[in-house]
């Protein structure tokens, strides 16, 4: 039976974590995502599923608690918003380096610095290019709705364990704070699976398990890097997700993700009403990025407009995908400001049609 509820994005994310069979959540309050830990605490998860929920002393501690729990082969998750995600970068680099699975959600707010508590997409590059030190990637999922937030929590855990890699849900203050109808998936039981890579106590007659990201010999560190790169290639081959709208006859393509993807969809409809043949690609995975479809479209359309709630970050990846075949323009608002569909349409007309 379908379980439908009207839920705030952050609370739906928390509920999805419980239902995904998460073993542990470690977090620290920050606007606009504090409802996640509040909801989990209110749910008394220790009673409900046995899931550990702990308020850490900092974002740094929270991600390192995730590292410890993930190293035991447990499903661990943390959430935060931009300034807090900056603090987690050290831990994420270690988790990626040690090849452990975990889920991190960033309910992005505007920056830099303490910035604003209003929604933004200005952590795009940090999310998709690694974020911390060293050559590594996060798998990045970008929900546009509360429903996708819920679905991506489950998907994120699946991908994290499939590739033993941290997965980030790159949401924003709009999706985190708004209420929408959502269909919840059924409770997945917590797993007691013991993994041979996890620290669960040395088994008699077997080598002890060591979780580390340290290789003092450069030859060995290069091997680790080559293995990571091979893994990322697999991810790029298998896990790309995007939605396309009206691309069959499109002469122009809007590219936008997350909440901005929804606003841009409205702009596309307005453009269609004025007779412009506009389609849209909404990347749902930001890493891996939907390179192939954009490259294909570049052979037949006249140009692309990326729309972002930042100063132009994803546009770099769109340009790489299009590879100079067609013009790629950018329009965005930032610092917590949200573009309107009319503004986007104006920008499109100015850049492509001629004001």
């Amino acid at each position: 039976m379908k379980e439908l509820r009207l839920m705030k994005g952050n609370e739906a994310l928390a509920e999805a974590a419980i239902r995904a069979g998460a073993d542990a959540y470690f977090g620290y309050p920050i606007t606009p995502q504090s409802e996640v830990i509040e909801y989990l605490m209110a749910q008394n998860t220790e009673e409900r599923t046995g899931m550990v929920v702990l308020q850490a002393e900092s974002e740094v501690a929270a991600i390192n608690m995730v590292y410890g729990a993930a190293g035991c082969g447990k499903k661990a998750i943390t959430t935060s918003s931009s300034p807090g995600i900056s603090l987690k970068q050290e831990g994420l680099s270690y988790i990626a380096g040690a090849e452990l699975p975990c889920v991190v959600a960033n309910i992005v707010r505007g920056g830099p610095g303490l910035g604003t508590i209003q929604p933004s997409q200005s952590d795009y590059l940090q999310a998709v290019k690694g974020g911390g030190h060293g050559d590594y990637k996060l798998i990045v999922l970008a929900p546009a709705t509360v429903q996708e937030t819920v679905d991506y929590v489950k998907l994120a855990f699946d991908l994290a364990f499939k590739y033993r890699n941290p997965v980030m849900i790159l949401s924003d203050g709009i999706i985190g704070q708004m209420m929408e109808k959502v269909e919840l998936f059924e409770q997945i039981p917590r797993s007691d699976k013991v993994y041979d890579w996890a620290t669960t106590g040395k088994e008699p007659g077997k080598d002890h398990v060591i979780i580390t990201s340290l290789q003092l010999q450069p030859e060995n560190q290069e091997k680790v890097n080559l293995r990571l790169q091979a893994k990322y290639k697999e991810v790029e081959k298998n896990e790309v997700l995007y939605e396309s709208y009206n691309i069959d006859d499109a002469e122009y393509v809007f590219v936008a993700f997350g909440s901005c993807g929804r606003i841009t969809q409205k702009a596309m409809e307005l453009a269609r009403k004025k007779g412009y043949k506009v389609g849209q690609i909404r990347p749902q995975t930001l890493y891996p990025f939907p390179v192939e479809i954009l490259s294909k479209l570049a052979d037949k359309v006249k140009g692309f407009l990326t729309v972002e709630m930042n100063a132009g970050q994803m546009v770099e990846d769109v340009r790489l995908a299009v590879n100079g075949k067609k013009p790629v323009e950018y329009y965005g608002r930032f610092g917590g400001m949200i573009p309107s569909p009319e503004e986007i349409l104006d920008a499109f007309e100015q850049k492509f049609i001629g004001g």
Partner: protein
Amino acid sequence: MIMAENLKNPENLVYEKTKVLTDRVLHYCPGCGHGTAHRMLAEAIDDLGIQEETIGVAPVGCSVLAYYYFDVDMTEAAHGRAPAVATGIKRVMPEKYVFTYQGDGDLAAIGTAETIHACNRGENILIVFVNNGIYGMTGGQMAPTTLENMKSTTSPRGRDVKTMGAPLKITELIAQLPGTYYVARHSVHTPANARKTKRALKKALEYQKEEKGTCFIEVVSNCPSNWKMTPVESNKWMEENMFPFYPLGDIKVPQ
């Protein structure tokens, strides 16, 4: 004639290396206390028969490679974060014995927040804190525990407490927290002291089984290489200079 081969029989066996240490050659400098401290902890784990139920967390510092030497499941933490990593492990595997092994820079400088808050929550873990008053691995820089007027590569004219702060007695500090159950300071520079350290570590692990809260054992140790002394000189210097400021013994014992 007495042949060495003939002596190798059980009744002549007076010492055996604990199986909780691997056969890997230690990378520590000659005369360094880490090797003995490792052995005491490994023997404590062995005596309690908990090798297969123990998970350790290595720090960043000289003992970064501790995971090669302890034959238990081990995780390498980022600098200073071992108590947070241990918290994550212990919370999802409460039936396991969890320890961290950390130096003074790791525990009392970059990891101060993680140390204090893990202790304040009373995490059921053992924190082993090896204090030699210097950053060993990076080549002898000033640590939070470097003594007043003590020279290091970043306090070449001696630690000036007016500008560099006073040495931090973090062990006394965390002993104030209700979450800590057993806090003691020992050394491993003589057989008698090493045995005391081992007894303390064993007790701490026993308290962990009883879920009493955080146990914190400091081992005041030496650093011949970076103190620029022979091992013997360094132990003498430690007795004369470190022990007066960091006195050995119990700091907080169960009531």
